[in-house]
């Protein structure tokens, strides 16, 4: 790991503990997750206990300590999508990728995570991949959608 990258991020926030969330966001943007080595380095740079860093990192859902895939699949588990049979879509994706919800494929291509109501219930069932929204998803369409992401 290039620790200079981490240094730059810490310096950008003047190495202040009050900016910890911003620092962690930037690290996560860089690596797609919060690598342990990076957090240990931040501890030295900011001279703060590791417990403070991990307290924040495990509190917010946006942070993850495990490597995430290059593409994030969010399956909407909101009420409308549930009624419209999203569970079958989710199962189809799980089968297709050979992973369970909350896991990442071995080739780091996809991470699969549930989400609560994306706010476009009229399109239910809804699947979001990175920034793209897929509405009225049918089981047969799943593999074609996944193929678009490398």
């Amino acid at each position, binding site marked *: 790991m290039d620790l200079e990258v981490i240094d730059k991020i810490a310096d950008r926030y003047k190495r202040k503990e009050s900016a910890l969330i911003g620092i962690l966001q930037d690290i996560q943007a860089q690596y797609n997750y919060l690598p342990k080595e990076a957090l240990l380095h931040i501890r030295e740079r900011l001279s703060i*206990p*590791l*417990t403070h*860093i*991990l*307290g924040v990192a*495990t*509190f917010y859902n946006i942070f993850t300590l495990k490597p995430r895939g290059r593409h994030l699949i969010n399956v909407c588990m909101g009420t409308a999508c549930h009624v419209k049979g999203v569970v079958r879509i989710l199962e189809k994706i799980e089968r297709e990728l050979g992973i369970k919800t909350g896991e990442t494929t071995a080739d780091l291509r996809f991470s699969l995570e549930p989400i609560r109501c994306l706010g476009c219930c009229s399109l239910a069932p809804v699947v979001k991949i990175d920034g793209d929204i897929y509405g009225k998803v049918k089981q047969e369409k799943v593999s074609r959608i996944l193929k678009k992401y490398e």
Partner: protein
Amino acid sequence: MIKLTIDNREVEAREGATILEAARKVGIEIPTLCYHQALTAYGACRVCTVEIIRKEWSRLSTACTYPVQKGIEVKTNSEKVKRARKMILEMLLARCPNVKKIKDLARDMGIEKPRFELDNEECILCGLCVRVCEEIVGVSAIAFFNRGTEREVNTPYEINSDVCLGCGACAVVCPTEAIKAEDIKEIRKIPLWHTELKKRKCRLCGEFFAPEVEIDFLKKKDARLGEEIFETCPSCRKKELGNKILYTNSRRRKYV
């Protein structure tokens, strides 16, 4: 000084004192679980809930965090308080049905069996261990991680912490005895924190008396004390000191 009434008694307290402190000073008992006078109040357990009436407006709040105010009327045992405290203990008991301290407090409130689904936790997430480790010991080896129902106290990455001294202060303050510090020959263990540390041998009696990292930590804090004191167990230290005093006294003042 600030004047207020607690359970119909006129009480005076210094500005900035909490209701709990004011009450304890005059001997009024309020139950607590997450409070320790040496640590920052945290308001986690809610067991110290009291009723506060101010300008005819009644509210419930935690006595350990609420600063005294002029003219307020505090009730530590009103119906409203009892109802709230009972509910709080019922929930705590459902979480920790096998913890003696919780069982006793709940029984005091007349609860034998909670209506809720039982868990089997020992920790009530009071945060005393986290606070003593940060505020008194000064290493912050443990902390709260995760959120909501997942919230727990642990070490980073749930492995042995590289800053834990094995001092056992957390085990001392824990109200539920969820933390156990144990000594197995030359090893100090705190299983909950995955801590296993080698202890140092006393240069006089040969007993293993404290974790090496703890001693080195203290040494760094006060180097003036000299090397020897850090190689000697507390009871040998006392003996040595006693002998020194006896010796000098007998020479100087012929007391013994």
